[in-house]
């Protein structure tokens, strides 16, 4: 058995070191990593045809208490379901000056010794502003094959939190009781993204007003809804509303289908082309290859499409 095959075997048991190293492989931007990824997915798919996984997005403004909420929710969910496993990927912004980052979301997570059913990984957004990192999709492809649920936690600070919609089956927007400015901010588009609203810190006095403001702005901001989206009121301090919200997450997990994220590949392929090849790449993809969806189905899978794409660009330029 090759070293990589052995690593995949151990990762199946959710051994932390092995899962962590595979994640690094799926974050690796060197071209040679693609071949290893193909192998890993082959191995995982060979014995996991009936696997199901839900990808849940949790986004919200800085200070809304996302991380504490994720910590409390995962704790409840794991306590309620003995056989459930959850991976959390928390994305934080990188410095534009040094390229480095401070990944601080772990701070809020409870430490459970030797608990394999809960895995936590931080990720830097790198060049991307606040939303997903360039390898978030790749990492989800891996984790969705190992865990029952992948939670992506992102900082929503503007346009970029819309990204999460392309990756997650269900998006939860966490808000804290609002001031006047933040109501303006809501109108700026963020309100259209989530499937579920979470009004956190509901023990604060201004929470009641915020709830009604939010409720009443829904029909105006989201004319596309048949039913208004649920608004959960939670407090990590008192524990209020956590059970209902955890219930919503569990229901989503129960209704999950498949785990390969295939239908999300075209969008993230376009992004990858833009990241790696810029406008030239995008032009080749659209004009010569008929767009991401057509090119992906012509190639043998996402990874081979990435491997071959360099040749396509070079052929087009020569």
């Amino acid at each position, binding site marked *: 058995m090759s070293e990589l095959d052995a690593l995949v075997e151990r990762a199946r048991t959710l051994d*932390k070191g092995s*899962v962590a190293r595979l*994640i690094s492989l799926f974050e690796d931007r060197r071209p040679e990593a693609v071949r290893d990824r193909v192998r890993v997915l082959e191995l995982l798919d060979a014995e996991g045809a009936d696997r199901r996984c839900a990808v849940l997005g949790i986004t919200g403004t800085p200070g809304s208490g996302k991380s504490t909420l994720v910590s409390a929710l995962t704790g409840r969910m794991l306590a309620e379901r003995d056989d459930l496993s959850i991976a959390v990927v928390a994305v934080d912004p990188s410095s534009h000056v*040094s390229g480095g980052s*401070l*990944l601080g979301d*772990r*701070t*809020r997570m*409870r430490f459970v010794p030797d608990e394999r059913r809960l895995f936590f990984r931080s990720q830097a957004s790198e060049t991307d502003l606040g939303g997903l990192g360039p390898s978030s999709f790749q990492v989800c492809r891996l984790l969705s094959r190992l865990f029952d649920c992948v939670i992506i936690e992102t900082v929503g600070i503007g346009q970029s939190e819309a990204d999460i919609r392309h990756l997650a089956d269900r998006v939860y927007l966490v808000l804290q009781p609002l001031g006047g400015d933040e109501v303006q901010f809501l109108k700026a588009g963020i309100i259209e993204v989530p499937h579920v609203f979470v009004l956190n810190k509901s023990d604060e006095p201004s929470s009641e007003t915020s709830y009604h403001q939010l409720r009443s702005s829904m029909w105006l901001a989201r004319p596309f809804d048949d039913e208004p989206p649920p608004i959960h009121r939670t407090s990590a301090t008192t524990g209020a509303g956590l059970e209902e919200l955890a219930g919503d997450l569990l229901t989503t997990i129960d209704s999950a289908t498949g785990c390969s994220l295939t239908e999300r590949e075209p969008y993230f392929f376009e992004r990858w082309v833009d990241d790696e090849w810029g406008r030239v790449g995008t032009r080749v993809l659209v004009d010569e290859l008929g767009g991401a969806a057509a090119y992906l189905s012509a190639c043998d899978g996402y990874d081979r499409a990435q491997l071959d794409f360099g040749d396509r660009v070079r052929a087009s330029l020569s």
Partner: protein
Amino acid sequence: MRAFGELWDEYTRDRFGVKDEKYRRFRYGVQVNSLGLTESQPENNAWRILIEALGVTLSRDARARAIQLPAWNEALSLPRPWDQQWSLRLQQILAYETDLLEYPDLFEGSVVVRSKVDELKAQAREEIEKILGMGGVIPAIESGYLKSALVRSMSERMSAINTGEQIVVGLNKWTDGLPSPLLGGEDGGIFTLDESAARDAIESLERTRADRDPQRVEAALEALKAAARDGSSMMEPSIECALARVTTGEWAGALREVFGEYRPATGVEGQQLGLSGDRVDALRDRIAKLADRLGHRPRIVVGKPGLDGHSNGAEVIAVSARHVGFDVIYSGIRLSPDEIVQSAVEEDADVIGASVLSGSHLELAQQIMDRLAEYGAAERIAVVFGGIIPKGDFDKLAAIGVRRVFTPSDYELIDIMESIVGLLESNAAA
């Protein structure tokens, strides 16, 4: 402290309505800080301590009721009994050999002191108003505002020392000197932990547990938890806990069960370091090249194992590492070696930087290396240590598997970062 005393008087009178002047008098004791003490030329610390002591004793209107002075060698180790005695003698000389205590306030009427006090008070008031605007000190703690201000101040101080803007004698100026005779002697002028002390403590704990009435212990803990849950006073049940000889660990554990564990804001987010120039640029280039070779930007987990709360070192290292281009995972202080290692394993970190000032670096290094080995990650994740670590322990740490050790004499942040990057480069090449 003059400014503080006056502000205290004004706030207790105007905000809290304390009418009797006697009850508004600010009585305080002070533990003079050891931030300014240096590891290099440690004899100079004696003068620093004297000057700090004068600061809280000279002026009668703002005089501390009790002082606890640090020892000359606190940047090298915990103080020995003799070191503490030397600091105590300074207080006794001040009290009994001088006539300091016989006069009214010496600064009364000084124009310079008055203007300094007024300036400080104005700045403090501005800050207090700002915090009140946030809803008071508790929201300011929870939002991380206070901690950020502390980390910013420390980062600015370190940057100023690194650039030479702030002079620290014997550290970044007049660094040549004769060897210090204080560091001679069999123990090298430092305190070494008696290994039997930990054993004795554990034995005494076990004896206590064996001798007490377990039913009474359990009932006391249940009563404590019940009080914590329903919000009634925890004092009575706590007293019963003490009488039942519940350990502090059990007592705190019961409260953790009810309240959970508080993780304070780390204060490191959004901090800038005032360091730039060729060396920073060169190091960022090296990190970019290293990232190409590794397939990812190098990741460092900065951790502070143990209960000691001196967080400056860990914070400045976290801020510096991000400044030069690391992805930094920092979860604050008071973590167990288990938590730090699990973070490093899950994050697939390249290096753990552990900060230890409590003197227990050997034990903690061993625990970290053992846990890493259990995860099969001891080869993959390098471990470096920083803190108050005597030179005599460097070889022992190396034998345990620690790859680099940094002490207060390594005050140049960019030197430390270059050393860690160098270590990762040689690992990547191997």
